């Protein structure tokens, strides 16, 4: 869809905060954005994780 390859990991909030190799992009529901404030990654709020349109649009905007 976006023509990119990515490694995807599921991590806890603590792991996202303390990751040795920080992800370029972190996807999260809006409720936990505050918990991720300050991490060195683009944090994207996703309302509907199954909506490929929403995912594609937000990833495209972030990565462009």
């Amino acid at each position: 869809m976006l023509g990119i390859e990515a490694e995807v990991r599921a991590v806890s909030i603590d792991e996202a905060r303390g990751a040795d190799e920080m992800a370029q992009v972190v996807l999260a529901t809006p409720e936990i954005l505050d918990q991720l404030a300050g991490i060195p990654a683009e944090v994207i709020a996703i309302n509907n994780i199954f909506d490929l349109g929403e995912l594609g649009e937000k990833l495209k905007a972030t990565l462009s």
Partner: protein
Amino acid sequence: MLSSYFGPGSIVTQGTSPSFVAAVTQSVSLLVTSGKTKLSYVDDVLESLKTLGPYFVIAPGLALAHAKPSDSVLAPGMALLRLDEPVISGSANDPVSLIFSMCSPNASEHVEMLGDFGQLMSTDQVMNNLLNASALSVIEDILFRYAL
């Protein structure tokens, strides 16, 4: 395969629930009774909910209750509580009728399960069909038909 994660008696339909917390508790308890987690996993999930809010309401009308992999998890598992009358969680995706629960023993299995689950739920009409299913057997058919 997604179907292999659902243990015996792990899918339940009922009219309503007193609250979102009660519905989550009931859904996660299905993982306990189907042999996928220890009782302590229920506390793990409720503690996350109390601390973080309804972060696992990940799509309109759908929650995927879970906690991070831990010793509370005995095997990869999923469960579903479907409510005829939805409950309010406080999420922008309210009201919630489908309360799935998930447990995984490690992060890699967690990603694999989410991938299988996401593939199913993003399939056209699956969500509506689960909401409108007239019997438990119909729900099982929907969840297992795709044999992911």
